[in-house]
């Protein structure tokens, strides 16, 4: 039987990753009202970019550069996606939903065809090794993920609440027309949001690959998880996304550790269905419908 300490450590690490993914997903929904189903593909983009940059079979750069490269590449792809596609159909939610869904699959399949094929791939960890604290062994990558996630979440909170751009993001999320009245360029704010959210997805992709491994289809499961998390937390709520990430992460880790490893990815779906039926507005946010 796995020790409770191990389960908690694993759950915190994976929940932190989910939080990074979910914040990006909820930011785009909160500001632009877009359910971005290509968010999973941006996770894959980050992972694939880090593979090209830091795997020894490719450029073999330091994993930290792979992390930065993965983040930047995903941000650039996200920006291109917004400028090239999304901004033209922002007012057509169904078209937009379908487009992001298809583009997401297109990006993932392009990664399969042109970069890594169907095989799993790996990159070295930015912080290999382990540390023992109070008799519990912690893997350094888990500590790194937890700290980085905390920093990113805090920085996002500060950015949104304290900076001019952040306040503009809040304004656009409340009322695009109202924001326009006070001179805020909603398209520019949407672009910044897409850049930020995509960078988060890229970081999550690299960290997932460092912690586990990567694959061309690796974005699909986190996308479903992100969807479950933001429904749980409340669509558009950053606080709700963080809380939701930890609830989903802990539930999944406990079920896979104590019941069956085959439940990976399954628990989140069960929670998603139950929540949509019982509390569609989530814990902190607007109604999903």
């Amino acid at each position: 039987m796995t020790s409770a300490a191990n389960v908690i450590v694993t759950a915190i690490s994976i929940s932190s990753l989910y939080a990074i993914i979910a914040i990006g997903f909820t930011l785009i929904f909160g500001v632009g009202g877009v359910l971005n189903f290509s968010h999973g593909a941006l996770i894959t983009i980050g992972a694939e970019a880090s593979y090209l940059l830091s795997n020894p079979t490719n450029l073999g750069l330091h994993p930290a550069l792979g992390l930065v490269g993965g983040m930047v590449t995903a941000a650039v792809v996200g920006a291109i996606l917004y400028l090239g596609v999304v901004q033209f159909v922002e007012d057509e939610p169904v078209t937009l939903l379908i487009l992001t869904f298809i583009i997401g699959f297109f990006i993932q399949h392009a990664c399969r065809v042109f970069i890594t094929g169907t095989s799993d791939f790996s990159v070295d960890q930015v912080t290999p090794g382990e540390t023992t604290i109070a008799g519990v062994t912690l893997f350094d990558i888990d500590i790194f993920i937890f700290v980085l996630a905390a920093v990113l979440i805090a920085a996002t909170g500060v950015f949104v609440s304290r900076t001019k751009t952040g306040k503009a993001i809040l304004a656009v999320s409340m009322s695009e027309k109202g924001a326009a009245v006070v001179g805020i360029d909603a398209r520019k704010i949407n672009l910044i949001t897409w850049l930020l959210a995509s960078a988060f997805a890229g970081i999550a992709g690299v960290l997932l690959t460092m912690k586990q491994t990567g694959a061309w289809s690796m974005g699909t499961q986190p996308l479903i998880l992100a969807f479950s998390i933001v429904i749980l937390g409340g669509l558009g709520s950053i606080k709700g996304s963080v809380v939701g990430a930890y609830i989903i992460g802990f539930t999944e880790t406990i079920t896979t550790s104590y019941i069956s490893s085959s439940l990976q990815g399954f628990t989140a779906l069960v929670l998603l269905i139950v929540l949509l039926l019982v509390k569609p507005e989530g814990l902190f946010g607007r109604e999903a419908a």
Partner: protein
Amino acid sequence: MADRSETRGGGGRDRRSFLKYAGAGGAAAIAAGCKTRDRPGGSGFTTTPGGSGDEETSEGTPVPQPLEGNTIRIGSLAPQPDSFPIGKSIWDSMQMAVEDINQNGIPGIGGRGILGAKLEPLSGNTEASPGTAREEFNRLVQKEGCKATFGTFLTQCTLQIFNPMKATQTVHITTAATGPKPGRIVHERYDEFKWHFRAGPINSYDLAAAELEFLNIYADQLGWSDAAVLIENIAPFDPFAETLKPEVGNLFDSVPVFKRSSSGTINWTPLWDEVESADVDINLIGQALTGTAAVKQWANQSRDFEMGGIHVPSQVYEFWEEVSGACQYVFTMNAVTPQTENTERTQPFMKRYRDRFDTFPVYSGPITYDAVRAYAKAMGRYVLDNDMEEVPTNEAMVEALETYTFEDGIVLPSIQFTPPEADFAHEPQWTSMKDTGVPVWQQWQVDEEVTDDYGVMHSFAPEQNKTSDYTYPDWIDYPSDHPANQ
């Protein structure tokens, strides 16, 4: 039917050696990369390195060429033959075998091609999808006119071509899938599906038997008292798990974990926590689809147990680089490794493959190479024994493959297919690891005597194919009396 020079059957038929045409142009020539010779006059043959191309037998009589003027097309059914290691090895090795035969003739007989008939290889990409495998089989056979096909990775792909095989009466020799079902079907519905043969690997029941034999001999020696077993939950591993489960407990003090791991497992940390908490010495794995993540996380987390069994990704030469050496100490069954000398022909083949493709083949490569040459030799001998002047029918080829033993293998010294009455018919005859030398137990090691900047796929068992001792993970703290410290 004319008298055979060498026959076999259930329980062993009479054999007499095929000396009439066997001469200097046989295995030694293939192994040595000796002289090359252009055949004058428009036969369609080209010169390739790798053998003598002898046109006379050892007795000085010319090798007969009754099939001269014929071209025989054979098809490769490989998943992504341009990139996926298992598929690439199939296609690359088929090309090498065809070139060898076209240049040097049939192993042990010589000449050019199959008694004058030129072989032409064609590539089919199954994409590891059963439906695509069926389409590609039909294309190769019906559109391209292939007389036989080789390959198929994943038993579902093999099974999907059973009906087309029956409809077109075409021989297919499997060279990369381990599921036992095809052999069972051939046994039960021989008249319909006798067209299927498997040159290797041995089927999953035999793989389990080999693992039990290995553990019986080596577990104590290597210091393994307690074991965990994690076998991927995919159909090809079902027979393996079924065979292992009732037996493995008899070989250890305890087996506290015996699980089928989900093929969708990405996060191995909970499972590794469970195995580590069970305080076992060895984690016996069966992994095909999930191997990379499992190994990477095992090594990154410096888990307190050794690991190995069947680990398909570790059979790929590039795997070391792919996981930055995380596979060091992981062991797996394999048919051959770049180091082993299963037969005198193994290393020359491996070196030629390396020189040509800048990598080493996966198990499917040597097996395909053997299968194509065994097919060619069976055809040649059938033609000679029956004084024929035309290419044998596919019905006759089934008889030939059932009858003749191929003695020039690079994985096994000889390939002999099990008879129709065997429970698993038309499979490679295999008795035990100790007797046959396969499977070999390969471990990724660092060995600067071989190379100082890459991992080495050494074999630590069985004895006849051993190239190095077993090595222990350097992050595990073993007691002083443990074999790791001896």
